[in-house]
């Protein structure tokens, strides 16, 4: 048997019909995650065609994008941004009832951002194929699953057939050698990687992240890295499962239990790229060179160490991007005045992210004039954070502590920045207007976001970590 990459092992195990010159492969999907924004038209199509869900047991739905992050009023009324958002949520609730889908809705203790709750529930498992009408589905690749975003037409395909028509993508290995310096985290690493390979550097590829620095990451950190694979254009990003993965998954509600757990782990251990297996392309990154990294333009590929001078524009688009951001070539991003700080999103809203921000904020106040929003990724994260008193750290620092949702990452629920405001954000996209029309987004780690909230300007978290540790 020829040597295979991790991706090829997962792909091959899910081929219902192999691809030919004329037809794509029919690929079986183990887990389909659903949210309110990209599913209504798919449910409508099924209804119009008189189709049922092929495997309702393989679908998991939640409410996250259009949902308010302020709590319900005493009468139970939720502060939706508008009637359409409210109707969209009601539509998913109705669709789930009609089609028999398990919905983690308002009354669930597990509701949250779809890419946070899948892993939390143990629904995300190594070796699976996972899709969702959401590009950040790549997050689940952190478990050695092949996970990618699809459009609404394909959401309908999976609902009706549990399969997708897919051409086999190419493979890209990103080796991250060495160790990340102290005070530098997974977010800095992935921003650095995208800065190196470019916003389209992964187009057509599935990335496998490998190397010492990757193996040393926690599951939360691996999810942060895989989450942003799409920001380099990649279809998916994977990391081979290991003891870190298994220890994290063990005992979660949907994970195999008892004897089945042992059998599963034995099988999952084989999910590694064989020696001698070839990738279509390989890139090497030196972890020791990574510094606290932020974006300076209007796509995630325009990323740089915050203390390095912003490079000169190389195209008309970059000139426009720098003007939009008020970034000045030759000057570093560090020190740029900040209006809003957002900690949250499927990239950085897990317990460790909140701890990272809280460790810097503890006992301090957010700079005057800065608005800070902290939005946990799920009800479970919210409970755990409150048990540790993190919510108090945030509110005492002057930040707003919200209920779970996508919030200001996509800014479609009413959580948004005003035109011209600069947002230091732990989310994944710094596109023009992404966080509100005219809002300027700087992507950063939770530590950088917290340090910048205290300083009122983009700040190096390492200066604050020393203080916090002392």
């Amino acid at each position, binding site marked *: 048997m020829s040597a295979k990459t991790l991706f090829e092992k997962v792909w091959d195990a899910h081929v219902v019909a192999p691809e030919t010159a004329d037809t794509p492969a029919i690929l079986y999907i183990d887990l389909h995650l659903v949210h309110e924004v990209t599913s209504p*038209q798919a449910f409508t199509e099924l209804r119009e065609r008189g189709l049922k869900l092929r495997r309702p047991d393989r679908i998991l739905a939640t409410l996250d994008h259009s949902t308010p992050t302020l709590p319900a009023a005493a009468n139970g009324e939720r502060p939706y941004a508008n009637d359409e*958002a409210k109707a969209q949520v009601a539509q998913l609730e109705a669709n789930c009832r009609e089609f028999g889908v398990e919905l983690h809705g308002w009354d669930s203790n597990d509701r949250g951002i779809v890419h946070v709750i899948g892993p939390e529930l143990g629904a995300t498992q190594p070796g699976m194929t996972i899709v969702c009408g959401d590009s950040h589905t790549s997050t689940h690749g952190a478990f050695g699953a092949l996970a990618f975003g699809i459009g609404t037409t394909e959401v309908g395909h999976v609902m009706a*057939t549990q399969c997708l028509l897919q051409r086999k993508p190419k493979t890209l290995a990103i080796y991250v050698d060495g160790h990340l310096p102290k005070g530098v985290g997974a977010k800095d690493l992935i921003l650095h990687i995208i800065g190196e390979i470019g916003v389209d550097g992964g187009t057509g590829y599935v990335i496998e992240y490998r190397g010492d620095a990757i193996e040393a990451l926690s599951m939360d950190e691996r999810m942060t890295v895989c989450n942003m694979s799409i920001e380099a254009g990649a279809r998916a990003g994977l990391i081979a499962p290991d003891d870190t993965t298994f220890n994290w998954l063990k005992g979660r509600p949907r994970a195999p239990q008892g004897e089945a757990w042992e059998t599963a782990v034995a099988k999952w251990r084989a999910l590694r790229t064989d020696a001698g297996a070839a990738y279509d392309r390989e890139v090497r990154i030196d972890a020791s060179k990574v510094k606290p990294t932020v974006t300076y333009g209007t796509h995630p590929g325009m990323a740089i160490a915050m203390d390095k001078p912003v490079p000169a524009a190389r195209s008309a688009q970059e000139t426009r991007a720098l003007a939009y951001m008020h970034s000045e070539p030759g000057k570093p991003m560090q020190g740029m005045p900040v209006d809003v700080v957002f900690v949250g999103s499927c990239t950085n809203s897990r317990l460790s992210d909140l701890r990272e921000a809280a460790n810097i904020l503890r006992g301090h106040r957010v700079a005057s004039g800065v608005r800070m929003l902290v939005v946990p990724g799920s009800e479970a994260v919210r409970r755990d954070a409150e048990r540790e008193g993190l919510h108090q750290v945030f509110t005492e620092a002057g930040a707003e502590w919200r209920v779970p949702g996508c919030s200001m990452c*996509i800014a479609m629920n009413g959580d948004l920045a005003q035109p011209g405001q600069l947002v230091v954000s732990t989310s994944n996209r710094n*596109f023009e207007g992404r966080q509100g029309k005219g809002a300027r987004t700087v992507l950063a780690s939770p530590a950088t976001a917290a340090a910048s909230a205290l300083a009122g300007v983009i700040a190096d978290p390492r200066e604050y970590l020393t203080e916090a540790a002392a």
Partner: protein
Amino acid sequence: MKPITRIHSRTAVLADENIDTDRIIPARFLTTTERAGLGKLCFHDWRYQPDGSDNPAFPLNKPEAKGCSILVAGRNFGCGSSREHAPWALLDYGIKAVICSEIADIFRNNALKNGLLAIVISDAEHNWLLSHPGLELTIDVRGQFIALADGGHVPFKLEAFARHCLLNGVDQLGYLLQHADAITTYEQQLEHAA
């Protein structure tokens, strides 16, 4: 889907690279539960001024771009989110084909599944089209080439199945449903292995 064999139009050009799906349709409009009627929101924050009037600086607002159904866009068009609202909005706005030197994966998939031609050509030919807006073109899906008014031909490759579906108006869900037996067999093997 109706069969599509060729598209004839003048070209409009949006030369910016990395035009993301948030620029094609801002996220705040994604609260809809319909596919229809998104054309008026296409390129919303680029196309309109704050008072709601047309932004004269937006290239597709220029008189010569009116009625153009072929868009030549800068490299990496459609990057960002998986929202199918992007091709729905473009089609409803009147765009029937996007020509580029590179198109983001998910957007390209979504576009072709809706009959929006997503055509990738070489850098040199792309650069030439970018710098010559308003050209009369015919995109020939069967022959996989772009015919220019001066007799020039620019070849492109569509994925074979996507091309077959465009030419014959094939319903891809219908195609998948025809494989129900193979899917059942696969599922039985899964249960057996578990």
